[in-house]
């Protein structure tokens, strides 16, 4: 909400600068932002238009004579509304306007022009630039523009939290200022001396829960015209557009007192019955903003006995709106139930200044005060006559609640003993009725405009708020019981992140929301949003790899030739629509692309391949576990060729070269890219404490066998055989050499040298310990795998 500082001064004395006032308002919970829109304007003064003559060479221009209190200047002006005798804002030659625009003496179509007559837009007052800004006659000619007039537009933007409907008005904000600064708050209440008169209309409220109070009354002989200049200025200052005196008066009272009201054209209402009721199904209303809404029982309406004439607390109907021909008006000032208004406004997606205030909780006791204020203003500025025709229907009395406040609890919660006198001053300041009990506790009745105060803790908050959070000392002692809990359950992930960093990988953080195709890339089990931002972000991801590919693509476009990227984050899948059937799992996925080792003085260029990835995984997963992993081919279409990783018969992930389908789905160019995806929780061994094993000091002994095998045969059976037969003393085994040579080996043959390393825990191994094993392995290999020992 925007508040005008000039307006606030109606109710409380303010000597502070706008910056200081902003700080004060922020310090009491009304987060304030002041934007200085005038300091960049200089040398603009109040002038008077002495004469206006047609420009000799341009139809739309006028040549004016402007007096600045001392001299007369010739100014060419293009505004259609310029007239002799007007008091205006005159920007002299040398003055600076918003945007750093500096005025110079110029010729316009052959006529010299010294300076400019300004529009409201050129002075940062509003967006109005169809004509010049005409000032009231009270401005002193020759005076500085800001001091004479511009100050009226100093404003502060407040972010009012939902618990403070009372601060949604100038009077409410002034009240907080008065409490915090200890200044007097000007009383602002209205009544009428006119005798009540039996009105020509009836008033009915269907359900007292929807509307606890409704004040309505008639004024006749109203003259619809522009509202007075001061009122327009204030509305403009708070960002409202003036329309006519009736609409402006209603808006003015809303901004001033926070009570929404509505003014109907009485002659357009087809009966004498005003009824507050729920809408009927399929009932239609056309609202002031020219929209049509189909209503149902959710919506509370004001009806003329037949049709709805307003959506209660939200917006009036077009058919009963005031216009320039209006002569008799019906003024409504009511209290509508917050939840009812909120449901109505939400379901219609129609949020207005009125609905915002009702749904937060208007002041149930403010209806009459606002009504009489409206009546007085219409009488004064719209020639309206009020003859006593009004009704104040209370369907449910406002009940005051008494709240017991324990001073001990104040001290406990705030952590500081606040003087009882200070507490009472604060509570009275915000409008509470306070009575002191024998045990020095207090009984408080909060004011009707503070629906947020209903419990002891609400009062304590008020005390802390007004006392000032910055005035509450900080307790730096570490208080409380030290609780032994399991340490960070995700601590183990940090080891993986550090490993990834040292393997050259950058960590990626990406959007969890994707389009349907991408989210269902690995299975049709993604979770959809009911209300997505857009189609591209309508589903939760089921795999981390698509975003890695997209990020890689972005980097490829930026000419990056070598990419190692990973993400460690949650994925979500569902097996049904219930919360219990939705699962969250943390995954570690990565991709490699392009150059593994660029060419240098030391070596030639090396490209990433599947064995780069395999090596990375071995290093990442760690020797102990990696050695015991099972790697099996998978026909997952995700990969052009891919493999699953299992540990102790449990699937822990997969890796491979990404298939071209994936690139197609993601609409990016296909490149050779390798990826892995691991269920990292299954590699969390942080709970098992590593126990030290004595270092084995006995010598290792290595043996090699050279087998000639069919080219197409995998080495896997041989490796398995070695593992099976070699026994406990085998500590390492791997192929060390592979070569193909038709001359020495024959067609479609390869020679593979396997090395085995043995070490015993308790003795030095000798030939006789190892040789029989080697012989057996060779023997079985030759028999079972079509392999031959090469000598």
């Amino acid at each position, binding site marked *: 909400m925007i508040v005008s500082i000039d307006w606030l001064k109606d109710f409380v004395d303010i000597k502070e600068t706008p910056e200081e006032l902003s700080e004060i308002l922020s310090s009491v919970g009304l987060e304030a932002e002041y934007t200085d829109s005038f300091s960049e304007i200089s040398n603009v003064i109040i002038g008077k238009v002495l004469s206006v003559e047609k420009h000799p060479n341009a139809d739309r221009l006028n040549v004016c004579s402007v007096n600045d209190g001392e001299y007369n200047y010739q100014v060419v002006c293009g505004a259609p509304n310029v007239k002799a005798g007007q008091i205006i804002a005159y920007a002299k030659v040398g003055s600076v306007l918003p945007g750093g625009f500096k005025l110079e003496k110029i010729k316009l179509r052959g006529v010299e022009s010294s300076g400019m007559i300004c529009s409201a837009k050129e002075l940062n007052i509003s967006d109005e630039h169809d004509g010049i800004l005409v000032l009231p006659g009270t401005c002193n000619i020759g005076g500085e523009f800001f001091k004479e007039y511009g100050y009226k537009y100093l404003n502060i933007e407040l972010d009012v939290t939902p618990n403070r409907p009372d601060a949604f008005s100038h009077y409410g904000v002034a009240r907080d200022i008065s409490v915090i600064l200890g200044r007097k708050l000007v009383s602002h209440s209205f009544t009428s001396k006119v005798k009540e008169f039996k009105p020509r209309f009836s008033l009915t409220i269907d359900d007292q829960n929807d509307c606890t109070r409704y004040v309505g009354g008639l004024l006749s002989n109203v003259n619809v015209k522009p509202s007075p200049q001061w009122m327009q200025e204030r509305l403009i200052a708070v960002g409202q557009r003036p329309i006519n005196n009736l609409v402006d008066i209603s808006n003015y009272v809303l901004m001033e007192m926070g009570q929404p009201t509505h003014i109907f054209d009485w002659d357009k209402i087809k009966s004498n019955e005003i009824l507050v009721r729920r809408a009927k199904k399929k009932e239609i209303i056309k609202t002031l903003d020219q929209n049509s809404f189909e209503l149902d029982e959710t919506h509370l309406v004001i009806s003329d006995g037949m049709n709805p004439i307003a959506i209660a607390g939200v917006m009036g109907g077009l058919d009963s709106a005031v216009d320039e021909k209006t002569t008799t008006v019906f003024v409504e000032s009511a209290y509508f139930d917050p939840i009812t208004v909120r449901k109505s406004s939400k379901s219609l997606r129609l949020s207005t200044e009125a609905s915002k205030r009702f749904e937060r909780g208007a002041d149930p006791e403010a209806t009459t005060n606002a009504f009489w204020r409206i009546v007085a203003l219409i009488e004064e500025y719209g020639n309206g006559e009020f003859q006593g025709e009004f009704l104040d229907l209370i369907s449910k009395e406002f009940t005051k609640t008494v709240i017991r406040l324990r001073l001990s609890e104040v001290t406990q919660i705030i952590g500081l003993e606040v003087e009882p006198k200070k507490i009472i001053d604060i509570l009275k300041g915000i409008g509470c009725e306070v009575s002191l009990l024998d045990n020095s506790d207090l009984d408080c009745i909060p004011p009707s405009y503070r629906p947020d105060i209903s419990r002891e803790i609400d009062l304590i908050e008020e005390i802390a708020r007004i006392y000032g959070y910055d005035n509450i000392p900080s*307790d730096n002692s570490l*208080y409380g019981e030290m609780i032994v809990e399991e340490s960070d359950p995700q601590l183990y992930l940090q080891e993986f992140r550090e490993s990834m960093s040292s393997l050259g990988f950058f960590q990626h*953080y990406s959007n969890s929301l994707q389009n349907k195709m991408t989210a269902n890339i690995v299975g049709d089990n993604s979770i959809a949003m*009911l209300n997505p931002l857009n189609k591209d972000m309508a589903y939760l991801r089921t795999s981390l790899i698509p975003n890695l590919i997209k990020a890689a693509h972005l980097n490829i476009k930026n000419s990056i030739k070598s990419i190692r990227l990973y993400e460690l984050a949650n994925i979500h899948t569902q097996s049904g629509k219930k919360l219990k059937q939705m699962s969250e799992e943390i995954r570690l996925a990565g991709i490699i692309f392009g150059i593994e080792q660029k060419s240098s003085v030391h070596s030639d260029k090396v490209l990433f391949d599947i064995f780069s990835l395999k090596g990375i995984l071995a290093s990442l997963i760690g020797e102990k576990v990696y050695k015991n992993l099972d790697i099996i081919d998978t026909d997952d279409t995700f990969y052009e060729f891919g493999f699953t990783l299992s540990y102790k018969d449990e699937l822990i992930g997969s890796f491979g070269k990404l298939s071209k389908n994936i690139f197609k789905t993601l609409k990016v160019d296909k490149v050779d890219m390798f990826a892995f995806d691991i269920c990292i929780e299954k590699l969390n061994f942080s709970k098992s404490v590593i126990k030290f094993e004595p270092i084995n000091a006995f010598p290792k002994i290595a043996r090699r066998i050279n087998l000639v095998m069919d080219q197409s045969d995998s080495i896997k059976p041989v490796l398995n055989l070695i593992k099976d037969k070699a026994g406990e003393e085998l500590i390492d085994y791997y192929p060390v050499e592979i070569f193909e040579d038709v001359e020495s080996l024959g067609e479609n043959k390869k020679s593979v040298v396997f090395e085995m390393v043995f070490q015993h825990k308790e003795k030095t191994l000798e030939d006789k310990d190892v040789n029989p094993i080697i012989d057996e392995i060779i023997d079985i290999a030759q028999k079972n795998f079509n392999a031959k020992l090469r000598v």
Partner: protein
Amino acid sequence: MSLKDSIKSVKNDFLTDFATVSDSSGADLLKQKYLSRNGLVTNLFKQLGQVSKEDKPLFGQLLNQLKIDLNDKLNSLDSTSDTVSDADKIDIFMPGKIYPSGSIHILEQTMLDIKKIFSEIGFNVAYGPEIDDDYHNFSALNVPEHHPARDMQDTFFVDKDIVLRTHTSNVQIHLMEQEEPPLRFIVPGRVYRNEAISYKSYCLFHQVEGLFVDKNVSFSQLKGCLEYFAKKMFGANRKMRWRPSYFPFTEPSAEVDIWDEQRNQWMEILGCGMVDPEVFKSVGYDTNVWRGYAFGMGVERIAMLKHDIDDIRLFYNGDVRFLRQF
């Protein structure tokens, strides 16, 4: 033992020995053992005389090969050590060999910093679900349906009663449902808001939630705790400001700003307050015994402030030119 077996055995012994040797002095010892006048290989040559005429060429060849292999291996050790010691040949202005290093994402680093600071003062770390029911994300936190406070956070709905959590505060409820007081936790995690993407807002971000429940907890202690955090995070001399604010699940509620010298303005870093009694009621804690404070901070916001990052989208697009800066 036949000569053939002997050759094999000597070769294996050599390989085993060789594996333990790393410099030229070690190589010299092995030369002595295998290739000297009484060395093991030399001795095998001596056995050649005992084999049959037909076999002689084959074994001769095998033995020669063995000698060559051994020599090659030992010489390779010699030469590597020689190069290293040969200072004249090194031009150290040649580039080093490449060992690429990656980085941990700046959001992760920031989150780790936050965790570390709170761990130092006795907070444990817990996590909770990103998809949750309306109850844990809203109602139990004193945000009833049809309350204007719901407008404070634009929510993604998965189903009528299932949401993507809008804050990590849902974990407050889970924790209190599972554990008896006292408790002291921080909860890092990803949260979602149905907001259009721009340089300053994204449809998701990360929060760290804090919750402390004990017997005599006060606002003054909350101030002490969070001032400790802010000083650790942003420097001991950073100016701070406490403003009253509103969150349905805390009362009194506050927002904390730090002064940003560069932007010449206050910047909000976190929201906090005393746990609202309604929240304790929804988890069955006795409000006459237990009191607490809670806080929540945006990791992105803190990282942006600390590192002068001016566009939130940079965090999520995986541009290596961004990632490698941290």
